[in-house]
């Protein structure tokens, strides 16, 4: 009898998106991880396979959920705006919200939930203070469209965009500690943020490791 073996072990474990690589590097092996907005489970699968995390996922789109579960991952259909309240306090070591915060209805409430249910939260989002965006708005007077934000204003899911500075200010206001902060530059390389002003101008994405104060 020949059994097919698991297709998943043959699949490449590379993470194409640079913010996902950075997020993966920030997660300790063996942690309990909740990936919110996990899509088809690419990051989660990488974390489960390469870092032996105890991984759970939440995804809004049913296609994404079904694809993730079919990969053997533990994923539920759910909306970050409403479903996080069901999880108990500190249920996870790390809660990941990658490129999703800007699409939630109430980012502040979501942020509060993240640091409640996770000991740490990792949040990544497109930086609306990036110089190309500023320039496009300044010179063309139109809502900017960039590789990170490709949709026109009337059909974008990103209803709560912010700059790195805006995000840091909200964390301060909510007494959420920024443990580590990175930007991802044009070449895809992550850099620790030393000057917020420069990062806010030259980083097209921000990746933040947060913790309840």
């Amino acid at each position, binding site marked *: 009898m020949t059994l097919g073996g698991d297709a998943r072990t043959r699949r490449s474990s590379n993470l194409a998106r640079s913010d996902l690589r950075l997020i993966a590097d920030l997660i300790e092996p063996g942690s309990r991880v909740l990936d919110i907005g996990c899509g088809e489970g690419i990051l989660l699968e990488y974390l489960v396979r390469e870092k032996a995390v105890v991984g*759970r996922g939440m995804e809004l789109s049913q296609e994404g959920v079904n694809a993730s*579960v079919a990969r053997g991952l*533990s994923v539920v259909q759910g909306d970050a705006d409403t479903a996080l309240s069901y*999880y108990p306090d500190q249920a996870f070591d790390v809660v990941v919200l990658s490129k999703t915060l800007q699409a939630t209805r109430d980012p502040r409430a979501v942020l509060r939930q993240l640091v409640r249910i996770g000991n740490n939260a990792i949040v990544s989002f497109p930086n609306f203070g990036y110089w190309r965006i500023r320039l496009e708005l300044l010179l063309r007077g139109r809502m900017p469209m960039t590789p990170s934000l490709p949709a026109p204003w009337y059909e974008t899911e990103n209803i709560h965009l912010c700059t790195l500075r805006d995000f840091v200010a909200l964390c301060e206001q909510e007494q959420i500690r920024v443990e580590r902060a990175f930007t991802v530059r044009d070449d895809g390389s992550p850099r620790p943020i030393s000057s917020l002003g420069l990062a806010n101008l030259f980083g097209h994405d921000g990746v933040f490791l947060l913790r309840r104060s």
Partner: protein
Amino acid sequence: MATDTSSKSPEIRRALPGHRLLIGKEAPLQLDCGATLAPAVLAYQTYGELNADKSNAILVFHALTGDQFAAEDHPVTGRPGWWEVMIGPGRPLDTRRYFIICINVPGGCMGSTGPKEINPETGKPWGLDFPVVTIGDMVRAQIRVLDHLGIDKIFCAIGGSMGGMQALEMASRHPERLHSVIAVATAGHHSAQNIAFHEIGRQAIMADPDWRGGRYLEENAVPRRGLAVARMTAHVTYLSEPALHRKFGRRLQDRRALSYGFDADFQVESYLRYQGASFVERFDANSYLYITRAMDYFDLAADHDGVLAKAFTHSPARFCIVSFTSDWLFPTSEAKRLVHALNAAAADVSFVEIESDKGHDAFLLNEPEFHATLHGFLNGTAERLGLPTGDLIPIDLGDRDPGKERIS
């Protein structure tokens, strides 16, 4: 007219294939109602091979009118098994790798002790003297079969509808006996609407003069009309408006014009009449009363101070909850309630809603996305436990497609 299997049941029962577990008086079945049951029989069927360390067993729980013949031609009806699309080589419940056990529930009518069997104290069929059984009783009885087979911990407990209730009950009461749970088209309790439909079915049976206060077997009668009406009503709840429309619309049955009478003018009427008539040939009316009652009584939260999450506290099992978009008997909102409770209990849970217009019955049918997700879930669990994984073989059912007619 087909043969009357109800009145021939003792002979047919003896001839049924499969296994029997006898429960003796030395260790009777303790029931939730306070009564005990012994001697009793549990009839079950298995598919595939149990591995050396007994770690590859999957317990399949059948639904209201299902039975243990899940993956073979039914010995009474001759029809394909009710979950042939799910169980077999290269199917999600792959018999090349897993040992599948399916047990006729106590209160049932396919060989396990139930109201149509002989009460040893009176020498007559139990009828309504049979004690009321619950979902908890069903699970407790089935665990006796696992004990008998020497299986400490099953790889997976899986079921749809009432089968899903049993899977959840087992996960809640006996978490140490399972690694994973798949609960399909089900809920943590039976809703008021569902109890209402069951009550209509029961009243239809009891209103049939041939029911004879439940003693029809002694009096050589069968409450055919009542049981058929119960089935017709229930059958509608298993489908969906789009599925009925697609299948029948307002098309007429064997005629070009309305009859201005009460014949089955419409195809949908003819179909329901057929469903009702064929059901009474294979199912016992009193069993229908008892098993619908068991479902009505099911309420996991009520057993845990009204907090569903408490039913799953500290559960180490992997859960997979599945619902279907057009199922209005066990809608997605019920599945989400389960998922929220499992999240609150910090359990390992997956939740999948499958797009289908086939209503509650979708769980019995060839739904490729449903099967692919279950396959992935089971493979993922197998991998964690060091059991072999495998690939799905696409289904070509041809004439055996159960979509043509409900068989459970």
